[in-house]
């Protein structure tokens, strides 16, 4: 790469290491071959005054980067749970048929390179793929051919042009029985125009909170019972009180690294109502005394990044962000940080390390981010859905907010429906909807009259729910009593045609791929779990391997540093609770399983797996 280009790029973003992600992304797109060659990286290290090893470590951690040339367009085909059950293997087949390349290979003309990847966050239109930064869903062989052909004349750019089917609006289930709060204005307001947001009473809650004492804002959020919507369900108001006090810089950080397979709610919210997030963050800033906010958005969400960037600029122009907001004397501004393809960065301390331009290793706690977060200063990290719930609490009051949802789990929840349903997409329901209601009313049942087999609720880290849990209220507390979790609100439904072994293989290959590798139980454990599940899939396992799965996952649960390594036990135990027989059947070398065969042949062929 030309030295001048590198100089200019670094000049554009600034040479502090916290800008490393954006600089490298820009350079990779500019390379035309989706590559960051060693020479370029050395130059970046020197100009930014970062050790070469730190840049090498950074690039090696984030899967979206590569130091070897790929092609003008990188095709990333999602193989996570929802896409897998909807036929991700057929996408690989179609790409192979059309372009003649396997995983880790490029076409001879240097036009396309094929990779497999984990969740792209468009699970209701699975199977999906991403070409550079454009996501396409509802893929069929015919559609894939026409999409690929359309790229032959395109130039690589950071401006996304995703398929119409992945548009946020299009991913919301059209069903009046919902309790629309967060999604009430979606479709009514133009996400590209601040005037449109202002016309519906936007930023009135911020105005109101600027005239309110910070302690009262926190009290209101506490009273509302709002709990974190990222997966852990920690009371938001209480989290806000943990942020360090005193005259130091504090930060509001929005966790928009939505990576849990099956989750796409935050993407829709950010794409369709970006100003609501800005407003929620500013109110949080006011409450905890933070003057700076960061939104950490996964790198795959180009449209969210673009729309939020636009919204931030518009808000600055209107004086809603910046100095002395609405003449209140309160300063607040927001900047965007991007991810690079790492599920673990959804863990708040990994996210903070990643924001600082480091490998996304989780930090041990304590200290918690509230005491020492970004740049070791007090930081409050909340999920998108959580922060977007704040303005309505300020506007309408805690009692109104609590008026739906069960005690201790108040408010609505965005449920992400994917998998083998007649209707998939996002629904907003009072917290505590049951699987039965979600499947029958909103998902309209299974296609072709097939029978329900199981649902995975909460994402890859979530548990498997069988028929016996159809009436379990899916709020934050009830599932835990049954050994499962609501998590981020994923409801991935699988009908009787799904093989339990094949499904678990995808989950466990996901965890090996996404483990950061820092702590021993998770680094080695995820590799072992994946290996053992592969033995079942290839019918070379023995019954004792079931115990081995449980044993290893138990050690991981007890000893891993962060939630990633502590998670695999849940899908494993709950899957075995229902389908142990299927696992035992797979111990017979003569057992026939076309699904497992297809996965083994597809995902493990070629280079770079």
């Amino acid at each position: 790469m030309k030295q001048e280009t590198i100089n200019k790029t670094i000049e554009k973003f600034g040479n502090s290491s916290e800008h490393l992600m954006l600089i490298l992304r820009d350079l990779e797109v500019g390379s035309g071959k989706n590559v960051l060659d060693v020479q370029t990286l050395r130059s970046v290290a020197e100009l930014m005054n970062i050790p070469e090893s730190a840049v090498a470590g950074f690039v090696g951690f984030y899967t979206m980067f590569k130091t070897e040339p790929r092609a003008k367009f990188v095709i990333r085909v999602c193989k996570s749970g929802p896409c897998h059950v909807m036929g991700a293997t057929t996408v690989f087949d179609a790409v192979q048929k059309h372009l003649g390349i396997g995983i880790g290979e490029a076409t001879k003309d240097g036009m396309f390179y094929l990779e497999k990847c984990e969740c792209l966050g468009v699970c209701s239109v699975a199977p999906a793929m991403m070409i550079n930064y454009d996501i396409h869903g509802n893929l069929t062989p015919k559609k894939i051919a026409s999409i690929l052909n359309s790229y032959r004349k395109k130039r690589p750019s950071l401006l996304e042009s995703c398929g119409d089917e992945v548009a946020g609006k299009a991913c919301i289930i059209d069903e009046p029985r919902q309790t629309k709060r967060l999604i009430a204005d979606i479709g009514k307001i133009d996400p590209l125009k601040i005037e449109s947001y202002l016309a519906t009473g936007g930023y009135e809650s911020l105005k109101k909170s600027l005239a309110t004492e910070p302690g009262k804002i926190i009290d209101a959020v506490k009273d509302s019972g709002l709990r974190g919507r990222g997966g852990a369900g920690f009371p938001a108001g209480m989290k806000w009180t943990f942020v360090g006090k005193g005259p130091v810089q504090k930060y509001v950080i929005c966790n928009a690294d939505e990576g849990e397979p099956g989750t796409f709610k935050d993407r829709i919210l950010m794409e369709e109502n970006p100003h609501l997030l800005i407003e929620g963050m500013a109110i949080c800033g006011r409450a905890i005394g933070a003057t700076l906010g960061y939104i950490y958005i996964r790198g795959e969400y180009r449209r969210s990044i673009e729309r939020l960037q636009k919204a931030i600029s518009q808000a600055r122009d209107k004086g809603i962000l910046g100095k002395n907001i609405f003449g209140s004397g309160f300063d607040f501004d927001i900047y965007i940080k991007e991810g690079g393809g790492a599920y673990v960065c959804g863990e708040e301390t990994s996210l903070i390390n990643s924001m600082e331009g480091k490998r996304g290793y989780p930090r041990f706690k304590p200290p918690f981010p509230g005491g020492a977060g970004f740049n070791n200063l007090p930081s409050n990290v909340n999920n998108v859905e959580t922060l977007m719930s704040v303005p309505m609490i300020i506007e309408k009051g805690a009692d109104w907010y609590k008026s739906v949802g069960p005690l201790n789990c108040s408010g609505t929840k965005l449920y992400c429906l994917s998998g083998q349903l007649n209707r998939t997409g996002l629904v907003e329901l009072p917290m505590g909807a049951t699987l039965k209601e979600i499947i029958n009313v909103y998902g309209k049942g299974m296609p072709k009259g097939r029978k329900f087999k199981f649902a995975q609720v909460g994402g890859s880290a979530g548990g498997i729910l069988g028929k016996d849990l159809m009436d379990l209220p899916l709020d934050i507390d009830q599932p835990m009593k049954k050994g499962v979790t609501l998590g981020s609100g994923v409801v991935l439904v699988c009908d009787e045609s799904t093989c339990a072994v094949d499904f678990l293989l995808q989950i466990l290959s996901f965890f090996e791929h996404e483990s950061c590798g820092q702590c021993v139980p998770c680094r080695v454990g995820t590799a072992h779990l994946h290996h053992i599940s592969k033995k079942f899939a290839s019918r070379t396992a023995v019954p004792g391997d079931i115990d081995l799965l449980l044993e290893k996952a138990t050690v991981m649960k007890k000893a891993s540093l962060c939630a990633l390594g502590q998670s695999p036990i849940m899908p494993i135990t709950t899957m075995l609770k229902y389908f142990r027989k299927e696992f035992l059947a797979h111990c017979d070398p003569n057992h026939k399983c076309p699904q497992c065969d297809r996965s083994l042949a597809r995902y493990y062929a070629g280079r770079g797996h």
Partner: protein
Amino acid sequence: MDAIQMTIDGKQVTGKKGQTILEVALDNNIDIPYLCYHPRISKTGACRICMVRVNEAALKTSCTEPASNGMIIDTDDDEIRELRRSILGMLLAEGDHNCLYCESNGECELQRLCNRYEVPMPAGDMPTRQRAVDTVSSKGLRRNENRCILCGRCVKACGEIQMNSVWNFTGRGSSTALTSDMFAQLGDSSCVMCGACVQCCPTGALSFQTVLGRGQAWELKKETSVCIYCGVGCQIDFYTNKEGKLVKALGNADGPNEGHLCVKGRFGFDFVQSGKRLTKPLIKKNGAFEEASWDEALDLVASRLSDIKSKSGPDSIMAFSSAKCTNEENYLMQKFMRAVIGTNNVDHCARL
């Protein structure tokens, strides 16, 4: 000092505010096993071996958990032992740990813990990953990552002690590996061969070239000395093998160097036992050096210096001293020049 009272394994112990549980335990001679912790670098919390039970409930890594007043700590019970054994077993299965061929045999921390917890040999049915073996590119250091447990001590030793940051992790998850600089061979990297990483390495993943093939850990004899290269006065533990040859130098933690050494102190000891080393004074007679006694040599120097001083004055003489001498010796040298010879012509190699 804010004192903390706590109970570890039923014993009342005292610690300081700001210490971790592990630090309090170590100060009180309570042995909690660990692999990623090292007193000279910042905390990592990654190996998970040092987990202890806090207040008869949760398991926490003692290397990261702050100690607090009234804590009740159990460092060992059935569950903890089983977890440690499992984690050690995972480490054994991940790499290629064959003590027979390893130069760290006998001083390896992983070996010691596997012995203590009676960890069985891995069954060999789990995937291992081939990592870098670079035994030749650097003159001082050897790297065999198949013996690496990715504890991160080397990364931090280089970054925090030597402040050179040659090492870092690259890759992710089970594909994590070490890199020196930008995917370079160690010998081609910006490594200054201080050896801090090797000294911190708990296994045989990193080792010194000087000791290879020249003795095994338990055969070496240790003697503590002061480095002769500069005025810092680093303390060095020198190791000699059965033949009495110097084979290894480790920084001694009690010296002003707190365990650290530079490339000279670490590797510059081959002259000690060199056959070319001067051991007796030589006087040039008829164009050739001949051995002489110390009396003869010192008499000659004294008479020649007196001659020159009386003929040409004291400022015609200068003394040039060495950084290899101690501060006391250097002090004596300048005192001799000023008080006995009568000149200020004194200089020292370290100024150049």
